[in-house]
């Protein structure tokens, strides 16, 4: 990456300690190297303290992008990334990114400036109740009242963001607090709470497995957030039990794993959904019975008893009653879980046959470039360093269905909130978090336009990101639903007046090209993956292509619609 990223040498002359300097020093003391931010009036003292701090500041071109990029650090590393914005619109622009992190349990520390305390509550310029606005979408939040509290608050914020069920923490700092003289604080070391283990729950879970003839693992993003991926892989292997995963759980078992039946749910694989509907024991590890995964909840896994492993006790029996709750840290729990199923061979064989029979095919005749085939080929060519960062919509589901993932970090997606505009800034953050990875931002034409300004960030820092824009000139997923469930009444989904994305990228100073024929795919992917700097591949695809299979609203997961209807 370009060295224009601003790492500034320490100052020679000491400057007086202020609240703002404490903010910066506390971040450095906690090992933060990179922050994503955008300056403005109420956060100016912090920006004044940045030069010479050793912190690398990445200037995104919209605060929403700062939040997405910082959250990407948390998604890749399980350590909280940091975003910084000013008060008022700066803070409100962070909201979507913070909410996205909240919904997907991603650690994030967001620092916002606030107007000075004497004018708080007077509708001052760029004053907004950031604390109140963000309250439902943060794990915790602070208004800092005294500069001397800053080191302790920042230390606590990282603790809260990263431990237990991770999530975003907001620190709102009035400008007078930033400017106030402060004592050089001591930076409390992070603490790691002792893991808890539910021994009784584990023994009951093992008994339930012994009684089952059709057990099935249902693996969610909680396994990733808790760092239990290796343990889950070992558990699945030693048990011999088939497994399905949620969108956030993709990559926990690598694509092609013989026991892995694929993603369940609305756009899940037929093999996965059939297994869920037929199993007699569903072993939920870190999933939350999200409606996109369950379809009609009352019809979900109708024959199954449920074991539910979750760190967050409030998730257990929230939507589906758990027959065996196991509420504790996933990593030690999964390690200690010793299921000994017997007589499940016919069930295993049935699922293996279905897995092979339901594998996607790419040889059907289509007009133009078939996006699922392109994405499948992309992930094959990119190899184990591949990190797919889809946006939201049809292409997001195609990525989930057709790409090959060697690890969960190979698939960074906005699951809970489903935020269009997610891909490009998140991919920027992912690339900073893991510079050696082959990070590919994959957007539709709708979502790409929502954070297109981040092409300037690629250019500014020379971020060697691969960007794919799959352009069907529509809001494709909405168009598909209008065609299927609204009698084909296409309302406000036509984007055929899109700009030429390759030309736009070139105007930002980013190499770009367009492909629109199947025979151009292979060379296009080679050029994309071989580029040394930032590059964009604009792909024109069939505007009428749909995502299949599909579980219609109100239907059970086995009642899937497919291409033939």
């Amino acid at each position, binding site marked *: 990456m370009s060295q224009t990223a601003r790492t500034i040498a320490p100052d020679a002359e000491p400057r007086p300690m202020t609240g703002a300097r404490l903010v910066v020093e506390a971040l450095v003391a906690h090992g933060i190297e990179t922050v994503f931010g955008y300056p403005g009036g109420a956060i100016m003292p912090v920006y004044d303290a940045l030069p010479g701090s050793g912190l690398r500041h990445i200037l995104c071109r919209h605060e929403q992008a700062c939040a997405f990029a910082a959250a990407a650090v948390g998604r890749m590393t399980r350590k909280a990334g940091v975003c910084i914005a000013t008060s008022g619109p700066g803070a409100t622009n962070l909201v979507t990114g913070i909410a996205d992190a909240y919904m997907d349990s991603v650690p994030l520390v967001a620092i916002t400036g606030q107007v000075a305390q004497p004018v708080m509550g007077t509708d001052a310029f760029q004053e907004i109740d950031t604390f109140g606005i963000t309250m439902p979408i943060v*794990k915790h939040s602070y*208004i800092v009242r005294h500069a001397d509290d800053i080191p302790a608050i920042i230390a606590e914020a990282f603790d809260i963001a990263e431990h237990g069920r991770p999530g975003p923490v907001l620190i709102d700092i009035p400008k007078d607090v930033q400017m106030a003289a402060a004592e050089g604080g001591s930076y409390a070391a992070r603490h790691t709470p002792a893991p808890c283990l539910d021994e009784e729950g584990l023994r009951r879970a093992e008994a339930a497995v012994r009684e089952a003839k059709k057990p099935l693992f249902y693996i969610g993003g909680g396994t990733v957030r808790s760092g239990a991926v290796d343990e889950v892989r070992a558990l699945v292997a030693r048990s011999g039990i088939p497994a399905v995963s949620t969108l956030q759980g993709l990559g926990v078992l690598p694509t092609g794993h013989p026991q892995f039946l694929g993603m369940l749910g609305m756009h899940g694989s037929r093999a996965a959904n059939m297994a869920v509907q037929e199993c007699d024991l569903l072993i939920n590890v870190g999933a939350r019975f999200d409606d996109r995964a369950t379809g009609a909840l009352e019809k979900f896994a109708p024959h199954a008893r449920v074991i539910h492993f979750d760190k967050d006790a*409030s998730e257990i029996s929230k939507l589906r009653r758990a027959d065996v709750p196991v509420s504790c840290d996933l990593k030690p729990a999964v390690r200690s879980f010793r299921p000994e199923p017997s007589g499940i061979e016919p069930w295993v064989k049935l699922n293996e046959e279905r897995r092979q029979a339901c594998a996607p095919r790419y040889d059907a005749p289509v007009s133009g470039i078939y996006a699922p085939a392109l994405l499948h080929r992309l992930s094959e060519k990119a190899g184990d360093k591949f990190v797919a960062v889809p946006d939201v919509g049809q292409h997001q589901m195609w990525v989930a269905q057709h790409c090959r993932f060697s690890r969960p970090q190979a698939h960074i997606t906005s699951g809970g909130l489903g935020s269009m505009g997610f891909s490009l800034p998140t991919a920027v953050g992912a690339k900073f978090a893991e510079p050696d990875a082959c990070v590919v931002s994959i957007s539709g034409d709708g979502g790409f336009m929502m954070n297109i300004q981040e092409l300037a960030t690629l250019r500014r820092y020379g971020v060697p990101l691969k960007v794919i824009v799959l352009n069907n000139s529509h809001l494709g997923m909405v168009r598909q639903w209008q065609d299927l469930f609204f009698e084909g009444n296409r309302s406000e989904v036509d984007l055929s007046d899109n700009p030429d994305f390759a030309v736009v990228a070139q105007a930002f100073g980013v190499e770009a090209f367009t492909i629109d024929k199947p025979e151009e795919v292979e060379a296009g992917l080679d050029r994309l993956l071989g580029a040394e700097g930032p590059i964009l591949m604009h792909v024109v695809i069939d505007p009428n292509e749909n995502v299949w299979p599909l579980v219609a609203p109100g239907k059970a997961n086995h009642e899937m619609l497919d291409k033939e209807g």
Partner: protein
Amino acid sequence: MTIETFTIESDDVNGTLRRVWTVIEQRGWSVRSLLVEEVEGGVMTRVQVSPYGNNRSIETLRLQIERLYNVRRVTLERRSRQKPSRWKEIPHAAVI
């Protein structure tokens, strides 16, 4: 109408009450009455809530409040099907 009463023990820090109230409303419950008092080392809140619609689990709400940072413990006190009678249901509250 089902009325549930919680006792919530929390730290005395900025925003705790607002956060508790937010969770209750966000998760599909209505706050019917609320009493907050300072106790040694923290704050004791007694709150009566009723659900919007059916199929709301009071135990899930209890755990969702209890997982808030600065909330130490949430105890479900009692259930009634009576309309809340303002402050007199909370015995030591003074009507101001």
